[in-house]
């Protein structure tokens, strides 16, 4: 059992639940948020081991979230998770550790998480 949670931030409820269930099934502890602002609140409380981050979201998007997180001195690995064609570029822009282009395969998600969890 992995103790530190993985934070999943995505405005799409179905994706959020699916990703969360997949990770829980593999034994991870998961918290979810529907936008950057909610995500930031969780991150401050629970110091996630890894963040899976959608970029285009209402209220606070992925860029603003990363900026705010860094401003608080936190540096957990971030994996950008987006349906946009610019997934790789956006990941570089915010200095993310990795990216998942939607729609992603289950094993890609698990590989990335396994590789980055706890580093």
């Amino acid at each position, binding site marked *: 059992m992995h103790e530190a949670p993985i934070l999943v931030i995505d*405005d*799409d409820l*179905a*994706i959020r*639940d*699916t*990703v969360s*269930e*997949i990770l829980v*099934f593999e034994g991870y502890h998961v918290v979810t948020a*529907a*936008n950057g602002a909610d995500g930031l609140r969780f991150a401050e409380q629970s110091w996630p081991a890894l963040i899976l981050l959608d970029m*285009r979201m*209402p*209220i606070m998007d992925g860029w603003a979230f990363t900026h705010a997180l860094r401003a608080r001195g936190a540096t957990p690995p971030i994996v950008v998770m987006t*349906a*946009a*064609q610019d997934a790789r570029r956006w990941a570089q822009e915010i200095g993310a550790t990795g990216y998942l282009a*939607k*729609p*992603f*395969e*289950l*094993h890609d*998600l698990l590989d990335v998480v396994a590789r980055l969890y706890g580093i």
Partner: protein
Amino acid sequence: MSADQLVQYLSWTVFVLIFVSTSIWAARHPQRANIDIALFFSAPTAIIAIGTAAVFGLVQAGPLINAVNTSLLLAMGYMLLRIVDDFAIVSVWLMRGAGAALAVLVAGAFVFQPPRPNWLNLLMLLYLVVVLLYAAGAFIRESRRSSGVTRRRMRSVAAGSILLVQLFIISSLNLVAPALQNTWQVLADICGLAAGVCYFLGFTPPRPLRRAWQEPELRAFLGRPASLPRLPDTQAILRALERGAATSLGANARIGLWSEAERALIFPQGDPTYRLDPDEPIPPARAFRDQAPVFGANIPSNYPTYAEYSRRVGAITVLAAPITAGERRLGVLVAYASRTPIFAEDDLALLQLLADQAAVILESRALIDEATRVRAYEEATRLKEDFLSAAAHDLKTPLTTLVARTQLLERRAQRDPMAPADLVSIQLLVNEAQRLKRLVLELLDAARAEQGRLVSVRTVVDLVPLASQICQRHDSARHPCVVEASEPVIGTYDQIRIQQLLENLIENAIKYSPAGGGVRVRLWNEDQQTHLTVTDNGIGIPPEDLPHIFDRFYRAHNVDDRRFAGMGLGLFICRGIAEQHGGQIRVSSRPAQGSTFHVVLPLAREEVAIYA
């Protein structure tokens, strides 16, 4: 030599000079109008010649000479009428009547020796005054109808006719008060001199004067090249160019544009269906073919196959000049008038100047158009890319769940084959699959809207039961839906699309009234059109979003993506449905108060194939 003698000799000289110059002109250009003008001045010249001959004793003054002089004077009236006919048009009956009157009066002049009976003198005076006043009136009318140099020429001729009337009236005062004979003579000579000058300037204006008269319009025309290419469209530029050329020349003008595709000249401002083959013999085609200005007089008799056409458009005499920018043959500038003497030979140079000006303006317009086309193409490409990436993004979202969730189910089933079916997951998958289906259909509709292929089979539809049905289906306690219509609202529409339009608008009304609130659908007929409004009391649309609300992928700023699902294609498709029925869709809205969408559709199919 006394002053009155001086005036007389001066006026004689002027008339003789005018006669000589108009005769030379008529000999060089033997057209009816030119000959008529020379003939008109031959009468006073003959009178002067006879008078001079009498001074030198070559002829004996007597009743015969007097009768000849009187006849010549009377003939001047008739001749003037012929000139009027050349410039304007005189009715056949008037011409015949004047001819008959002339014959009778000339006979009278020879039968009755002077002093003639007063009634005959009065008749002669009456004849001349009537004819001359008619001529003056005709020229004034013609000057009102024409512009530029032609207007000035007609005014001058009208003034000449009025002066001649005065001359005859003054001459006849001689009979009333013979004691003042010398005074009358001087006044008459002055009037005669002035009339001669007026006629000369009007009928055969010397080149410098013609130029001076053309100058104001020409200057105005040539001063516009900077502003013209910026006019909204090529049609407006053509209109302005044609108007400019027309007023500069005092005639009508048309521009024919060369169409490489049709290998013909097209006159967009004239008859746009007319195609002129450049191999035709008429001046506009010749000017284009030979790349040189061409003058053509009397088109109906010179080109009999064009007689009917040229009479119909009033192009009896034609000037044409090629519009060519460098190597690019753009078209022809054609000036035409229904009367021959409007143009002079040297107008060709002026027309070429105007055509060159037109070439510069049309060429810069073409460059502007070209730049606009490139920009429009880039914009279209960008829109297409936006569309693709937005569509891809929206399709990938449900796909992500479908792919990951099915693989999760597979993984679970592999680990624990006996586990019960995960109904929650299956429900989620069904929902996402439905969402994907809706998105794909919506995208396909948007693509069809883009290509104008939304509307297909049309039938006669009553919109009232259709709207009631959809309304009923969406009716709820939170969002009561009512349809208001006092009569059937029937038109020829694509029923499935109209249904989609209504459904979209009603669903939007409900979707954007999250706090609840009624939806009101109104239908009525007005001005041969079908009107339909859908009103809600929802969140409304911010004013800055209103102009874009029907744009593809556009969503208003007060729409929270999380609360209101959608791609921003619904209203775009609605607009497509309305417009492809030949109608339109409008919206009025106030934030936090609600919106009204107003659709206007023509009753029957519009045969305008904009999207064909």
